């Protein structure tokens, strides 16, 4: 049952060969049996999942089922879920029971999905390895000594081990695409403004986007259709019609122009990854696409720009965690300042504190122009590189990560070494562009991801190209033997 993709499960539910209760019980049993090894879930919602599954089966019997009715999924613990702990991977929110549902949660609930639980993540989405979580590291199902990537490491590991057929994630600098690449699944970061951020705990407000993580592009298309759309409750939500992502999946690739940035293939990239990506692009050529070399001259600035902009925005967003209205409060505060400082000092882990301090420094009087303003100007240049490239090509292809999954503990002492894991993914967030990572190879038993970046609001095209590739390859169908 768990070898089936979300789309295949949807078909089985539709033709009556499977019921939602049976399916949900199956995944809950898998979580109980296997998640001890992975630590991919923070909260498992057994009772409410079964209740939702029963309701889904009843809706189907009454002729009221939609394409997502009865499908079990997991939500990254960054999405507020009414009446349920929403921890954001942090001690700060370990006691936080959300009074409301995030848009992504309510949209997928209305569509009839069944929530299995909340997945583990790097604390406040700050990390590339899921090692900063208050709830402990998540293991990569392909090799338990390796990281699954981050910050959506729990969602990635759960889907890769088929403890859930699909999950939601968020991506600020690569947090959907990088863990998808390291665990061999398909993950999409939509265009900035495509998916409402209402109820999605904010890290960096000009960069954050929620998106689907699943076994295939077809699965992601199914989920994105329910997640995307204008929401007045998110002031950055953009008014754009939501296309039928599934209808476009089988479009021809004739005439598609793909660009390969020369800056992506320099030193620092694993040979095995360069080779797998090149082979995957060759497959796309066979399917009708043409490939040209392009240049993104300011690509080298992406990581430095991000590590000013994201921490600056985070320092503002995380100032709401003050021990006053919700979340962790220290014991016996002596005065208000002590309340703030100790609640925050105790509630936040080291990486979060580091980033808050970098951001505070970059925004402080005397440093704002040199750091934040400068970074925003560099951001403009990075964005312009993409606009210019998209005059010559329709899609940009390349690796999702510089290496396959690294060892747990290998990069935790050196923040900058950790940050460089996002070097291929960050620029798309800075420019607000949609990006997808899909599996295209393997090296020493560890998955390799191909990344495709498209024009604003061109998710349909990304999903189409990924789907066509997945029709002539089977990397996306592989799963680690230990979890079969």
């Amino acid at each position: 049952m768990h070898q089936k993709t979300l789309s295949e499960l949807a078909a089985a539910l539709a033709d009556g060969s499977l019921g939602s209760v049976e399916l949900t019980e199956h995944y809950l049993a898998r979580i109980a049996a296997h998640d001890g090894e992975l630590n991919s879930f923070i909260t498992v919602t057994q009772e409410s999942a079964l209740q939702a599954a029963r309701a889904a089966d009843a809706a189907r019997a009454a002729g009221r089922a939609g394409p997502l009715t009865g499908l079990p999924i997991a939500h990254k613990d960054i999405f507020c879920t009414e009446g349920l702990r929403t921890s954001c991977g942090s001690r700060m929110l370990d006691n936080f029971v959300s009074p409301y549902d995030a848009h992504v949660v309510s949209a997928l609930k209305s569509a009839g999905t069944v929530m299995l639980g909340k997945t583990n993540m790097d604390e406040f989405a700050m990390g590339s390895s899921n090692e900063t979580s208050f709830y402990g590291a998540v293991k990569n199902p392909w090799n338990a000594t390796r990281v699954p990537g981050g910050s959506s490491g729990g969602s990635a590991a759960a889907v890769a081990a088929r403890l859930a057929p699909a999950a939601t994630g968020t991506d600020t600098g690569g947090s959907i695409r990088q863990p998808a690449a390291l665990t061999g699944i398909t993950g999409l970061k939509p265009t900035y403004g495509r998916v409402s951020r209402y109820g999605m705990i904010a890290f960096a407000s000009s960069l954050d986007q929620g998106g689907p993580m699943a076994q295939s592009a077809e699965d992601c298309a199914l989920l994105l259709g329910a997640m995307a759309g204008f929401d007045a409750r998110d002031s950055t939500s953009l008014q754009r019609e939501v296309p039928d992502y599934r209808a476009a999946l089988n479009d021809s690739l004739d005439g598609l122009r793909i660009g390969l940035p020369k800056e992506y293939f320099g030193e620092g990239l694993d040979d095995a990854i360069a080779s797998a990506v090149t082979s995957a692009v060759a497959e796309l050529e066979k399917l009708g696409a043409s490939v040209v070399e392009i240049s993104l001259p300011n690509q080298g600035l992406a990581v430095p720009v991000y590590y000013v902009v994201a921490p600056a925005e985070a320092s503002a967003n995380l100032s709401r965690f003050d021990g006053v209205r919700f979340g962790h409060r220290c014991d016996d505060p002596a005065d208000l300042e002590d309340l703030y400082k100790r609640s925050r000092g105790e509630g936040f882990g080291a990486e979060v504190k580091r980033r808050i301090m970098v951001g505070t420094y970059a925004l402080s009087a005397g440093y704002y122009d040199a750091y934040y303003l400068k970074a925003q100007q560099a951001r403009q240049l990075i964005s312009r590189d993409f606009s210019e490239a998209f005059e010559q090509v329709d899609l940009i292809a390349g690796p999702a990560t510089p290496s396959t999954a690294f060892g747990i503990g290998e990069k935790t002492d050196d923040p900058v070494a950790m940050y460089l894991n996002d070097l291929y993914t960050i620029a798309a967030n800075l420019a607000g562009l949609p990006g997808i990572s899909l599996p295209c190879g393997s090296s020493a038993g560890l998955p390799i991801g191909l990344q495709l970046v498209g024009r604003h609001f061109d998710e349909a095209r990304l999903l189409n190209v990924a789907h066509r590739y997945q029709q002539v390859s089977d990397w996306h169908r592989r799963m680690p033997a230990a979890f079969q």
Partner: protein
Amino acid sequence: MSLQDDQVRSIAHLARLAIADEDVPGYAESLSSILALVEQLDALDTAGVEPMAHPLHATQRLREDVVSEENLREQYQACAPAVEDGLYLVPRVIE
């Protein structure tokens, strides 16, 4: 830019973060290495380049200045550490 311990303490104060004395040098080191990464931007010529605040150049959407939300104070205060008569309790601020 290499940060000294006293600068770390200043920044931690601005951010209202309690940092143990023995942890200050560690943060000074890691913050310094992050700032070294970021200083690659210094060499960049950005004369005449507009700073980009929003990736799609959008501006803040406005709405009519009329009440549109329900008052759900009780529901939202259910998760508060300390409330009384609808107010959040904190240590005395005004003598």
